[in-house]
């Protein structure tokens, strides 16, 4: 499916909802992948998904991703160390290289998610705070209760670090 910038922009601009008041139910995809995903609705019609990823073997390694149908159109990453090279043809406000651990990828027609922008003043932000920032920037009314990704996985994470 070829996306157009206009439809992606319209979806980003739309007020979106991740429904359900139940807590986030993290799943252990593998020892290095704790994930959760949920539908994203616009006026009660599901048009996308959110997908969250945590790598419990690394400190502050988080991904928060928004997809429009099957295409990923927005992602907030936290990773360290970090270096990202933005491609030729990037938007004017997009720097050449970024080193900021907290950064966002925004979809651009012809470039996909290859353009990244730094997010300042989040170096000490918790996972929950980063989730809030993701929802603010993606215009998502996030209704599930927050749960710490490590909450049900302490034993496995501890075990993994000793491997």
């Amino acid at each position, binding site marked *: 499916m070829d996306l157009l910038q206009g439809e992606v922009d319209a979806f980003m601009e739309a007020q979106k909802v991740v429904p359900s008041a139940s807590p986030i139910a993290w799943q252990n995809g593998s*020892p*290095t992948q704790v994930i959760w995903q949920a539908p994203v609705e616009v*006026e009660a*019609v599901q048009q996308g998904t959110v997908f969250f*990823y945590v*790598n419990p073997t690394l*400190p502050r390694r988080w991904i928060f991703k928004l997809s429009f149908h099957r295409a990923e159109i927005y992602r907030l990453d936290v990773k360290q*160390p970090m270096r*990202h090279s933005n491609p030729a043809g990037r938007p004017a406000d997009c720097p050449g290289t970024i080193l900021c651990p907290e950064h966002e990828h925004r979809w651009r027609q012809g470039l996909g998610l290859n353009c990244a922008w730094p997010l300042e003043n989040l170096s000490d932000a918790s996972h929950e705070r980063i989730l809030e920032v993701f929802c603010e920037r993606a215009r998502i009314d996030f209704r599930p209760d927050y749960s710490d990704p490590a909450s049900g996985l302490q034993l496995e994470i501890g075990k993994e670090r000793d491997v």
Partner: protein
Amino acid sequence: MSVKETVLAAVAEDIACEVLADGSGRIGCLTPFEYPDGDAVVVWVREMGDKMEVSDYGEGLADQEFRSDYERGIVSDIARGAARANGVAVFEGRLGTQCTPAELGENVLRVASASAQVAASIACQKPSRRKESEENEFVRLVDETLRQSKVPVEREHKLQGSSGHSHRATIYVPHTHTILEPVGGHWNQVASVYTKFSDLAGVNGFHRYSLLDDRQESPGDDVRTLLVGVSDVITWSAHDAWLPHIRGGE
């Protein structure tokens, strides 16, 4: 010599190294390789006795959503292939090696290369074929949504076509004589709906709708073109717009 000094002595000049802040003694190496989104591939090194462990800690597969065991199997095959080609091991999604300090520089590049290849291969993968079970699940979703919207529906309602042949409407709204056929992308299903609606088109009084499942990707234009010849074509993503018509028979 500290682990960081060992690593710095072994790796190429264009690889930046950083000690992880979690007290584990691991060193993150920013390599020249890149993931498909332009982020640099980082591999981690730690001391294990007289050996060094090099791992991508699963980052090559970081944000993979597995929709099925089938997809998981494909990704595992890709990871194994990339690992084999680069002479590294793959275990539970992680690519890595164990080596001597003297072999460290080469192994950092091998693991980084394998991790980048895995991510690039997956990014190039075409979306998987829609499965029959997804279509059944779509029928359930449509049924439940209509009922929640106070539209009385019947499943598998029996109707007679102009040929005299009996058909079953997947979803039938009796008070408006509306037939709703949810359509995924399987040509078998598309052909079946087409045949059904062709025969029912000759019978007066039915509103015929082909409802396309566009939750992930819309069936192709060829599907629409075929079905619009025998029915109205609507999409699931616009159900707020067409639901009043189904409810009121407009």
